[in-house]
């Protein structure tokens, strides 16, 4: 590096001298550097992770984890790849929960809003305990979403659950045996497949391609040599 001064260096005392903290993993105590993610703490302490790691970017929901911070009785949920450890924290990764997923053919549904009650008859039995909302690491108002699904507001559900990473943490806590993430996925798919206008421009483009609208242009382009193509490409702005 050409740059020698300390002028443009960000202070990170935690990096220069990592403070070790004590955490409890699956009930055993370990020392790990403060501030690393939960998944890295597992690796740091020699745990092989096969089930419980996926995208490592906070999108796939594989690393659902229960944790509790020091002196707090509340057990919370998180994604292990997105949460930093702190002193006194206890955590365990959550094994997959055997929730029932309904099987359906999304394209041939006749009455998707009514079909919800056949596919997920437990959906209207929500008892409003709000445990699902509290369990969601993505901060989705899950309970509200279940009610909106039941009342047929599929559009709102599809918007509310766009952040859902399908970790399934809302399911084991449900006292009415609802799998809210699966209900929402059905609802969102039904919304997309049945209650959204078809984009006219897209169909137009498909027809144009089928009718060979671009054939002449393709003919010209595919015959060009590299120099000619380079020239055409250079003109694109």
């Amino acid at each position, binding site marked *: 590096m050409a740059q020698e001064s300390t002028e443009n260096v960000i202070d990170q005392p935690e990096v220069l001298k990592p403070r070790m903290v004590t955490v409890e993993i699956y009930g055993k105590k370990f020392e790990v550097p403060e501030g690393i993610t939960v998944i890295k703490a597992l690796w740091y302490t020699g745990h092989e992770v096969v089930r419980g790691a996926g995208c490592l970017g906070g999108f*796939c929901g594989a690393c659902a984890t229960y944790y509790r911070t020091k002196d707090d009785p509340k057990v919370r949920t998180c994604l292990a790849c997105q949460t930093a450890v702190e002193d006194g924290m206890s955590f365990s990764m959550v094994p997959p929960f055997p929730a029932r997923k309904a099987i359906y053919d999304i394209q041939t549904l006749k009455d998707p809003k009514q079909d919800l009650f056949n596919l997920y008859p437990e959906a209207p039995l929500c008892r409003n305990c709000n445990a699902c909302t509290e369990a969601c690491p993505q901060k989705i108002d899950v309970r509200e979403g279940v009610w909106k699904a039941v009342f047929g507001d599929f559009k709102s559900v599809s918007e509310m659950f*766009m952040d859902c990473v399908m970790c399934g943490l809302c399911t084991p806590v449900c006292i009415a045996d609802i799998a809210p993430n699966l209900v929402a996925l059905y609802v969102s798919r039904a919304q997309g497949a049945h209650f959204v206008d078809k984009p006219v421009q897209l169909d137009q483009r498909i027809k144009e391609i089928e009718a060979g609208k671009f054939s002449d242009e393709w003919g010209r382009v595919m015959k060009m040599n590299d120099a000619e193509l380079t020239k055409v490409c250079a003109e694109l702005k």
Partner: protein
Amino acid sequence: MDIHALQQIVHKTRDERRKQTIPKFSPADRDQLITKFHPDFREAAYRPIKFGPNAGEMTVRELAALLEGESPVSADLDLTPQYQADVLVVGGGGAGCAAALHAHAAGAKVILATKLRLGDSNTVMAQGGMQIAVTAEDSPVTHFLDTLKGGHMKNDHRLLKTMVEEGPSIAKWLLSLGVIFDRDGDGNLHVKKGGGSSKPRLITASDYTGLEIMRVLKDEVLNQKIQLLEFCAAVELLSDGNGTCTGAVMRDMDNKRFIVVAAKAVILATGGIGRLHIQGFPTSNHYGATGDGLSMAYRMGAKLMHIDTFQYHPSGAVYPEQLIGALVTEGIRSEGGHLVNARGERFVNELDTRDVVSSSIIRECEEGRGIRTMSGRVGVWLDTPLLDVEQGPGTLRKHFPAMVTQFERFGIDISKDPVLIYPTLHYQNGGVKIDTNGESDSKNLFVAGEASGGLHGRNRLMGNSLLDLMVFGKRSGTTAAQRVGLMKQGRLTLEHLTKFRAEAKKHGGSSSVISPMVLPAYAKKE
């Protein structure tokens, strides 16, 4: 210095920068910049491959070692199959699911095997969108030319033409499955402009495009009752002794046993190589991105192409430590976010291609205009608050909820403060050479998605990967399914492996690594 003190320069220079237009590099300047600063041109990181179909060609040392690696399967393994399928799909990401669904729809008995869970992939993380030429001002031909330009003219023309022409029908298929894309007021698909593209062409589901597609495809695979083998890693292919692929040997990740799957055709949808951490780079890739398909196809005799070129996404997070390597979506630059050096200056047209932008960031940092962290990293600022300034408060949160949440977890509000970024290993531009149906040099061995090569040339354009997965997943699945109807299951042998081992021996033996890697070894042993 305190990070907030360092960030002041970004706030102070914002109004001045908003008046600027940064021109794109001329082709000559672009080539000079890339040759000097792009990691693909660090000679010390490369070596020739010693043997096999690409003997003598250069690739990064990490990949060369795997290609020359030792199979975990011994020649005397009992090859009595535990499972039989018409089509075996290896990989549970976007390409794998698309291949499985189309093969199934065409009447084949499909098994989908994946070493992690169905859906665990890079696809699920794709934020920027999917390029499809749907607007009146755009056309598949323009999409073709943009991609060719971005790929340094090295793209396979036939693969590329196939992809851009099938794009619109893919969008229609996804819509019919219930995928929700962003719309304009008139109901048409909303399009955004991506880096290196001359027209707005990115179709999006906020910044969750990959997640939205993956959620739906995964659900559809389950609805279609396609047989799944989760936590089963393919470790070796099977051949009939004449170079035709006839199945695969898997390893059960739970009990470590080998499982033999007989299949009339195999589709490798095994993804990329980020977790090899080439040249020590952090990566944006998922846990299983270890290039397994490349090693297996290579031993089978399939030729690879463009395996000397990788994509370093310009904006990987450098701060905080917990997010190192994680992507800050290109969408932020698409919507006008500036890249700013330690002096408060812009230094590149933020919408240039990824290789150009990455090279220019590396240049700024190597020439002393970067911002360093105490963990020895360096980066430049991405002016995220600018989006709220330009388009009104709340824009960032509305358009990039995933991004905002990710940083919020660590107490950082990216709508108030800029983020520090540096290129991160993102994509393998090349892969197994395929034809327009996704078939490799080895008969009945298909490859789809990032594991395949040729389509993207030497630099993939943003948004072309999601489309690649869907188009070549579909084509390989459909072609394989049509073909197997007329075929008998071939013999199951490891003769290709025996041959490969003999060749390795002639060249001083295989490298000492077991290949495929399957998962990176992150667990500390002592």
